[in-house]
């Protein structure tokens, strides 16, 4: 990615379109976080592309004064793959929701992550279908009563962090709409990652699923339940740092610090090649309930799809020379008729 010393005001990143999310929607906060972050990202705005699918979150590109493509339900990672492979010099961001990314677009999500395509996927998880007015989503809790599940959902929800890690994602992180500082940190880490990045952002839908993340956003919950993952530091949390995370037999556990020696506390390492520890951290909670890890789970370098595609093309041009159509159409042997 070519970086130029550009610096914008947040308003430079705002398009002239009126933002039309419901008043009080968590999307407003995320939009502000992204615009502020991108003002200082150091990439000129003509090189930034936002691609989205369908859903409330998917309106995001219209509000960014960058290039934008609002596409069809679930397909944004595939569209974005076409964009970034065609022009690797662009900074390509996908904005998606839990229904868009994990239900109708599940296939595209896992393959973009597996291939390590150089795109940054922001999944706003509100655990509900908002734009269609309130059906349960693949991240809604079991038993959720909605218009389409009046007797309660009978489905086990997905754990988005586990899915991303299972799909070989090289960058996996989680934030929450209200925490603009954490969101900025996570976006910073994602933007400097060469490869696909998956960022889940818990997002409150105050109309159809209000307070879904209260255990992580209320005054008490924020302190009691958020396990902040910081690279190189011991994983400790709680109002008085009274809890810690250990890894025993490959399994992450929440323990009282009084029950163990401090040397047993897991020291977070986002660069571990093996995703097992990150995966076990993702299993500490199966949703925003009780102690829940936040921050960057994993950030490892591996070959990106983009680079490999370009390398093959460059190699072909170096070894065969630039293509010549006259030679190509004669390559299977010819004969002359006089």
């Amino acid at each position: 990615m070519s970086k130029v010393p550009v610096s914008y005001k947040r308003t430079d990143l705002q398009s002239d379109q009126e933002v039309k999310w419901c008043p009080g929607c968590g999307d407003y906060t995320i939009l502000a976080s992204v615009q502020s972050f991108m003002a200082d990202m150091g990439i000129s705005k003509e090189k930034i592309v936002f691609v989205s699918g369908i859903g409330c979150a998917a309106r995001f590109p219209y509000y960014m004064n960058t290039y934008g493509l609002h596409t069809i339900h679930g397909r944004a990672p595939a569209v974005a793959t076409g964009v970034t492979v065609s022009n690797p010099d662009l900074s390509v961001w996908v904005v998606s929701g839990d229904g868009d990314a994990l239900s109708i677009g599940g296939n595209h999500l896992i393959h973009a992550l597996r291939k390590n395509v150089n795109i940054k996927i922001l999944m706003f998880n509100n655990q509900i279908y908002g734009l269609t007015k309130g059906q349960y989503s693949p991240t809604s809790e079991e038993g959720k009563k909605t218009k389409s599940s009046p007797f309660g959902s009978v489905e086990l929800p997905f754990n988005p962090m586990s899915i991303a890690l299972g799909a070989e994602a090289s960058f996996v992180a989680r934030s929450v709409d209200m925490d603009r500082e954490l969101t900025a940190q996570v976006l910073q880490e994602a933007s400097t990652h060469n490869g696909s990045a998956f960022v889940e952002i818990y997002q409150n839908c105050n109309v159809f699923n209000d307070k879904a993340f209260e255990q992580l956003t209320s005054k008490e919950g924020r302190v009691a339940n958020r396990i902040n993952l910081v690279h190189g530091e011991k994983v400790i949390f709680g109002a008085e740092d009274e809890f810690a995370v250990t890894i025993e037999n490959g399994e992450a556990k929440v323990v009282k610090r009084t029950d163990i020696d401090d040397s047993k506390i897991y020291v977070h390492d986002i660069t571990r090649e093996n995703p097992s520890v990150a995966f076990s951290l993702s299993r500490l909670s199966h949703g925003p309930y009780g102690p829940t890890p936040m921050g960057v789970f994993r950030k490892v370098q591996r070959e990106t799809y983009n680079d490999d595609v370009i390398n093959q093309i460059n190699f072909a041009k170096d070894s065969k020379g630039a293509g010549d159509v006259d030679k190509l159409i004669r390559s299977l042997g010819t004969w002359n008729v006089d």
Partner: protein
Amino acid sequence: MEEPTLATDKKTVESIPAITIRFAGDSGDGMQLVGTRFTDTSALFGNDLATLPSFPAEIRAPQGTIAGVSSFQVQIADFDILTPGDNPEVLVAMNPAALKAHLHDLAPNGMLILNEDAFEEKNITKAGYKLDPRESGELDGYRVFEVPMEKLTKEALKDSEIKGRAVLRSKNMIALGLISWVFNRPLEDTVNWINKKFEKLPEVADANIKTLKTGYNFGITVEAFHHTYVVDKAKLPAGEYTNINGNIGLSWGLVAAAKLSELELFYGSYPITPASDILHELSKHKNFDVITFQAEDEIAAAAATVGASFTGKLAVTGTSGPGLALKSETISLALSAELPMVIVNVQRGGPSTGLPTKPEQSDLLFALYGRHGESPLPVLASRSPSHAFYTAIEASRIALKYMTPVILLSDNYVATGSEPWLLPDYKDLPSLSNNLTTKLNSKDGFLPFHRDMTTFARPWATPGTPGLEHRIGGLEKEEGTGNVSYDSDNHQYMTDMRAWKIANIANDIEPLELNGDEKADTLVLGWGSTYGGITQAVNRLNEKGVKVASAHLTFINPFPDNLGEILSSFKTVIIPELNTGQLIKLIRERFLIDAKGINKVAGVPFTAQELADKIEEKINE
């Protein structure tokens, strides 16, 4: 045993204008390879030719059964031909099932070459024969030659390093060697080909060459084969030729189109028969800056292609019928966002999985109408392997010039059949224009839907261009600004504009041409792969004194401007199609004429004679 050498020949050579040969065997018997080798040798010799490969959808269908039979038909001629021939005059049958499946097509007094070693009771029963067909009298009326292909192979390879059952893999070379003798084709080209193909397996190359020569020598030694035939070079227009099939022609056309438009080619696809060979071919040509993207599914293939188009590539996705269905929503997005894109559909028998390896023209209405909303787009069709090259360029030209998705139809017959192609010079191909822009088009900022008022195309500003940042998508857009708009007048205007933009392309395409007797009362109108059959049938009828003309559509949407005038100058219009009547619906609706259909969905193309007979019947009705 020493390597066999070619014995002195004591043959008589009869010159014939054309011959149609069909090779048939188990799908593992290598019949496609034998057919292709004979074809390529004949092409290099200078014959005109056309081929029709036919194989089961299964890679290795049950051995010895009718379902597992694979065949390859080729017609070679010393004159200009358009079809792979009607009834073969030579049938090579490697086993009883191949005989049972193909004997009914063999011309009276045709030459029938049997692999006698395969006619064991077990195989005879498996093929569904109650009696050995060689003894039941059903081969009366044919010239039967029994050849011990397996014994000859084993004998030829008894000192080879190839052992056991692997030895018999070379038995197809006996058939190729023998046919090469009977039709006076030299072996050098095939020997070179074998050596190159098995460069790293010299013992396999050696085994194949030995058996090839053994088959040839069998012809020399056995007196029954001493009457041989030769088909002279065809008197084709002067120039340099190559032999191509439609998938390769189409692939090369896309590569050429990218160069001609000074864009890079992006091809997004998911493996599907019979379109996969386009993906295979294009993935070889990375030195042309071609990006091939093998997607996780058909939808992703189309979606990534839309992304590539937004980024300024010549963006193409390819598939066959079931895949076109999956791409439908994405094509509507490209149509609504007015992004250029080519969608190649190599048609096969449907519905559903249908007949994956057989030709059919049954996706025409789907190509025209298979999208939600009011969503017209240009549709054109390739009529032959070499025409596929030019239609790939034409589809790209229209997509880029008019900022629209374009569907290019091919089918299994065009895709896998081959013909000689008089090669063009790249410099004589047209350069392709596009709507790329780097300039602001208004004082108030960039207007992504501010149209060119001759083509009605919108400007194409790609990410990376400073000052032209804009957002587009599938929601209805306001004319000019491209901003989301739910305004009712605007939606009416945009819907009409999208339709008008496509209809207007009629002014920019080749007019329809007539073939045959222009003063006749009857016109045969076709599209796509029926071209060879229709044209040859009409020419035959004209020679017989039957008054009839033909015309063949490349564009089905929009129709060429002169179509109405041409139709109105004939009393009767006959429309043959490999479907149950699709173009005919369009013609009846648009021109209000009582066109008559000739329709077939039998998994095989029309033969020229079949069409000639049916056209004559319709004329006499």
